């Protein structure tokens, strides 16, 4: 997943933006199985992203864990078959993840222009993530049901 996001997806970038595939997978798993089940995925995935990223080590992990904890709330699980859930989860997860990441960058002393970053990067990225969230969520839901049937 991390390799796909760093080596393959950039070739299909739109306006220089690449969907946060690892985030979408973790969030989908969190919705379907709860935040505890998704925690190890968030930690492992975050670790890989931090190793591949030029940002402060741990920033991606913290942001990913925070997103999975919030989206894994029991109240959201009730609507896991709703068509609106991927849309809402995509928006919430993207804003949480990138907002946390931005905060971590600032805490570690990186110079970031918050206004232009939110307006010209995070908001368009939210739309892109929502579009990709649907196939990712349906794929993960299929996997979840298969595992339930086998287990």
């Amino acid at each position, binding site marked *: 997943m*991390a*390799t796909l*996001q*760093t*080596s393959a997806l*950039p070739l299909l*970038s739109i*306006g*220089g*933006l*690449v969907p*946060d595939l*690892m985030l979408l997978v973790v969030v989908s798993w969190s919705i379907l199985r709860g935040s505890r089940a998704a925690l190890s995925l968030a930690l492992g995935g975050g670790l890989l*992203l931090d190793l*591949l*990223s*030029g*940002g402060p080590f741990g920033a*991606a992990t913290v942001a990913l864990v925070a997103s999975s904890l919030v989206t894994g709330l029991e109240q959201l699980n009730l609507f896991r078959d709703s068509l609106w859930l991927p849309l809402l989860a995509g928006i919430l997860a993207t804003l949480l993840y*990138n907002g946390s*990441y*931005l905060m971590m*960058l600032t805490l570690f002393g*990186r*110079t*970031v*222009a918050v206004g*232009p*970053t939110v307006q*010209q*990067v*995070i908001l368009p*990225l939210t739309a892109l993530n929502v579009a990709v969230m649907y196939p990712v969520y349906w794929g993960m839901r299929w996997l979840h049901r298969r595992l339930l049937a086998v287990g």
Partner: protein
Amino acid sequence: MFCRAYGRFVHTPDAPRDSSLARNRSLALVVVLVAAVLTGMALGPTGYLRPLEDGFFTLFAPLQYSVRWVSGRVAAAVETVRQFRTLQARVEELEATVDRLMIENVELREAEIERAELREQLEFKRANPTYDLIAAEVIGHDPSSLLHYVIIDRGADDGLAAGMPVVTSRGLVGRISAVYGQASRVMLLTDPGSSVNAQIQRTRATGVVQGQAPRDLVMRFVEQSEQVEVGDIVLTSGLGGNFPKRLVIGQVTSVQRNDVQMFQEIRVRSAVQFDRIETVLVVKGFSPIDYLP
């Protein structure tokens, strides 16, 4: 009815009258036909048979035409079915040829693009003979859209070190921020944490080019008194010792002057397409002064 028909051919003592009548009829028919043939043979050469022939063909020609027309269509359909399989095989063969040629075309185009890139790099190297350059391929990008880094396939094993500038034939790309055994991470110019001491080629006005979201370059700390125009070339100044002098950064696209501000804000566009870079050159022979990643 079967008995009557059967009776015509079988003599039974119980029906002598029927059998003789049938025989007489048959004999009469034979005689008439033979006479007709003999008459035809006699009259044929003289031309007296012509009206009969005309009348015959008047009646039979349309029938012949119709039968011929239907037969022609049936024969054409049979021929089409027979040719169909041959044509199908030919179409499959041609489709396979087209697929093969398309793949070859794509490979040739890729080879041409690679050749053009390598030629540009070679020309850059020839134009800058003092630089010790090593080519590298971009193998990954930063997973976060908030940061602008790439990973290249050269590292410490190839003699690279942190702080070394990275360029392409089109201009400055960034610098190496971290080195591993066989890979390195490069901070691009457009990263918010990037800053390069620069100067306007025409006026020699100095400033600092910094990365700004989403993927812009902004030259700051240029005094209001400096005359900067759209189209001016921006180069590295070499000040601070972080980059070699006179590496092309880009071209001025807009100038913002404000009387209440101390400095102008200048937007710069690089000729490098940062999200499409495939190969880069690392300036190996340059050691930055006090580089802190």
